[in-house]
């Protein structure tokens, strides 16, 4: 387990959406260490995406604290949050690409907006990002011309464009065929292992969650090599959390997940 301070820290966080009678999240506590992976599982409406919105500061907790790199984001104004968000990337459920911009403009949105780079530098920095997600030839295409999987890959490239320390994935593989979903998972693993990016993944796709937990990637002779740990006893750095109706009913490693006797988790895994 990493000895570095946590990138994200939730302490007894509660949140209810306006006009909702029940809490969307209740008493959530967890930490994500630097370069760690947190996989949040749960059914629809269990509060998974709400956790990501809280991390980004898009909503504020009603009680408890949410810290990113030691800073309490619940107490920050929108301007301060922009600085914190610069350390994060987010991949939304359907990609959330800007319809009116090309693929390249989407990927380089932050470069144009925050760094005002020249056209040459823009292309120099965006092309490798599109190469990373293997969509070089889609540079000038519009999002409407892309398939669902391609949109998610562009969203991954956009999220990594400013070299974030942390990437949040909101159901990034939901609704995709198994092969495309596996490609997206490979990208997540590649980013985590080769770029040292901490990962928070929200999903209800068990197959993808376990792929990210067990797969690892390294460079050998200039080639990217994928491998998989099948012995759950040695699997390290990946924590699972299972949510049910806004409460965390399980938190631990994959091996403990399989061994838990919590009835909801058992039903979820079956």
């Amino acid at each position, binding site marked *: 387990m990493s000895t570095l301070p946590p990138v994200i820290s939730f302490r007894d966080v509660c949140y209810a959406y306006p006009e909702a009678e029940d809490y969307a999240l209740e008493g959530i506590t967890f930490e994500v260490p630097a370069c760690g992976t947190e996989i949040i599982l749960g059914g629809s409406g269990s509060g998974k995406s709400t956790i990501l*919105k809280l991390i*980004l500061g*898009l909503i504020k907790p009603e009680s408890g604290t949410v810290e990113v790199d030691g800073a309490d984001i619940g107490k920050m104004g*929108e301007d301060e949050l*922009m600085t914190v*968000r*610069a350390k*994060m*990337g*987010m991949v*939304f*459920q*359907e990609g*959330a*690409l*800007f*319809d009116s911009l090309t693929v390249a403009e989407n990927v380089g*949105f*932050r470069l144009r*907006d*925050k760094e005002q780079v020249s056209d040459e530098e823009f292309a120099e920095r965006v092309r490798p990002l599109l190469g990373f997600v293997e969509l070089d030839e889609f540079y000038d295409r519009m999002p409407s011309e892309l398939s669902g999987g391609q949109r998610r890959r562009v969203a991954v490239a*956009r999220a990594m464009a400013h070299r974030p320390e942390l990437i949040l994935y909101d159901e990034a593989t939901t609704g995709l065929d198994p092969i495309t979903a596996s490609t997206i998972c490979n990208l997540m693993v590649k980013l985590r292992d080769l770029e040292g990016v901490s990962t928070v993944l929200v999903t209800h796709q068990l197959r993808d969650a376990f792929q990210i937990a067990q797969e690892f990637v390294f460079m050998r002779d200039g080639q990217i090599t994928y491998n998989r740990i099948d012995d759950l006893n040695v699997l390290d750095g990946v924590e699972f959390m299972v949510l049910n109706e806004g409460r965390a009913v399980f938190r631990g490693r994959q091996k403990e997940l399989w061994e838990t006797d919590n009835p909801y988790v058992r039903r979820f895994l079956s």
Partner: protein
Amino acid sequence: MEAVVNGVSERLKRTILNIQEFTMLSYRGFVNLLTPPRYWQDTFDMMDVIGVGSLTIVCLTGLFTGMVLTVQSSATLDAFGARPYVGRMVSLSMIRELGPVLTSLMVAGRVGSGMAAELGSMVVTQQIDAMRALGTDPIRKLVTPRLVAGVVMIPILTILSDAVGMLGGFLVARFTLRLATQFYWHSAMDAIQMEDMIMGLVKPVVFGYLVVAVGCHLGLSTRGGTRGVGVSTTRSVVIASVLILASDYFLNLLILHFVYP
């Protein structure tokens, strides 16, 4: 009875909350101009959408309004033997009232609804959240350029509409009513005073702000998927139109009181 009271109180609370959000959005939209980053390219793009995009519809509206005004008023003026004054009637009506109001109503239907639909779609497809996640303030990037473009372009469109309306009036006066060209234009131009121009330019500035602010507010507060986008679009046209007509009355009172001698 209790249910009715609760319902009314809930509705009242929601209305007050909406007014508060609308005011905050307007305030932040304009205050953003004081500090960088300022999105001038987006502002010019929106000026193109609002100004150039609405040119045809605004000119047609002005033309036919001027023509109808001439036909209608000539009958009344003839009864007093005052047909040569038809130009005066058309120019003052267009500049003080019909130009600003009709231009703004047309832009509300064409552009305000489009803004509500565009921003509403961006909300339901999480593009607004994505923008915030990428460290960009959506109000600064999307609302401020639209507000500036609306406040600048609607007065310009109004001036064009006034001019085309007077031209339409002239065409009818010259070729249907057989009025001499110099009679029409002399009467039309002599009637216009500085106070009329102030009234004719202050109104579209306020209306421009209302059309854009309502469209942006309803777009950004869209809830409930694609159905919500439709609701926001329709409401933006209805609310902006009512606000234009209501504020027109109060602006008339204010300007008549403070500007006219």
